[in-house]
């Protein structure tokens, strides 16, 4: 029974690539979130106007800034991290309130996790952690979107 079920899970996972149990993925890695300096995300040439990332905004330790695509002006920051699983989500769930950004929504999931939080001008931003490929997690800070 279990073997059959696992086969079913693998098939579902291959079909969805999402939260469905069994989605194929790189194996687990140990990674501990930590605050600290990190490379800043950079824009590709001719980048659109973006909201600036506030000074002192928390960044997951070890995360590396990644060039942001021009076709996503809502993106404010983009990093890549080896800290898989819930590390980014857990880090920002604790670090954002501590840094003065109240969280207004927690959305953990199997394909991605999101936090919605409020910045100083009252606007709502999001942190999104998702599969970045090659065993990494992509961490986005972006304007809120539906």
């Amino acid at each position, binding site marked *: *029974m*279990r073997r059959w*079920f*696992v086969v*079913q*899970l693998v098939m*579902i*996972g291959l*079909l*969805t690539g*999402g*939260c*469905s*149990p*069994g*989605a*194929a*993925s790189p*194996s*687990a*890695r140990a990674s501990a979130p930590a605050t600290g300096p990190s490379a800043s995300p950079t824009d590709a040439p001719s980048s659109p106007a973006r909201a600036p990332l506030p000074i002192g905004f928390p960044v997951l330790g070890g995360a590396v800034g990644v060039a942001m695509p021009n076709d996503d002006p809502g993106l404010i920051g983009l990093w890549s991290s080896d800290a*898989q*699983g*819930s590390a*980014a*989500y*857990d880090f920002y*769930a604790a670090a954002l309130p501590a840094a003065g950004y109240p969280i*207004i*929504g*927690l*959305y*953990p*999931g*199997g*394909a*991605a*996790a*999101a936090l919605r939080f409020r910045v100083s001008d009252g606007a709502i931003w999001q942190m999104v*952690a*998702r599969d970045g490929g090659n065993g990494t*997690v992509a961490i986005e800070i972006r304007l809120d*979107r*539906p």
Partner: protein
Amino acid sequence: MSARGRRAAASVLLQLTVMGWSAGSALATDDYTLPFSAPGVTMSYGVDRDPALNRQLDWTGQTWKDGVPHLGRVYDQHTGVDYPMVLRSEVAAAKDGTVVDEEGGFGTSQFGSFGNFVLLQHADGRRTLYYHLASRADGGISVAVGNTVVAGQPIGRSGCSGICYGAHLHFEMLAWSSSAKGFVPADPLAERRWTTWPGRIPFDASYVRESNAGTEVIRRGQTITHWVEFRNTGGRAWRSTGTVGRVALATWSPAAHASLFSASDWPLSWMATFVDLPSVPPDGVGRFTFGLRGSPAPGSYRETFNLIAQSVRWFDHARLGGYYVPIVISNLTP
């Protein structure tokens, strides 16, 4: 009064479509509950069986807690519902059933291809899956294959094992597909059989009182006002507005028949009224006020009523005490 007018319940399967009010479920025993008891837990990511529609509704039919349709946060072809759960929160069976599979060998927050889960088989042929659980050593699995469980019974604790980006419970319903010759994810939006109250069926009621528990005497051609109160013993709030799930008092035996006593305030010839208050929470008492018109020839009658949740289901009439109103139509002033 509570035992008044008991009748064998008619086959409500015949009432699946009543003037556009399709009933999705006929038997109370088909109902499921959400798999936790913690109040305030709302969907993180919803079922999306249709990428084109980007459905994002919860299994309870609710939108996100902040009321905004977060279409972008539904990942296409997701086969279950994600509920944020603090690590090691209690997970409960959604319905009576038997444990047919489980896995608890992965770490509570171990990221990887597979994670910990419990799979239950239910008497109606469906299965429910509880995924991303904590490890067995961490209390994530508290049942074993072959165990029987009842709705609301704790079966484990939440975790973030498997493909997981933040502690949550992936809750999924599976139904047998003869064409696929296997279990496939069921569409909970079509099922509409869910409640956020573990151990309670969504729509249930018990008789409390009425304006006149005896016989209503109505002068022919006149209309009198009658009210009845029922306690909400189900797991979902009764509402008087909306398109799905609003609760109405309607004729019964046979279900949805045109009433001889329908008054001008009736929404339909077979529907006396919606619940008076905008919302009646579980354990609250809802009043249904409606007119009874003395239209038929003088004589003794009875009109039987039941509750219906719009587009969802009829209530179990026996649990309403077999409610009916004895009526005498007179030519004389009462």
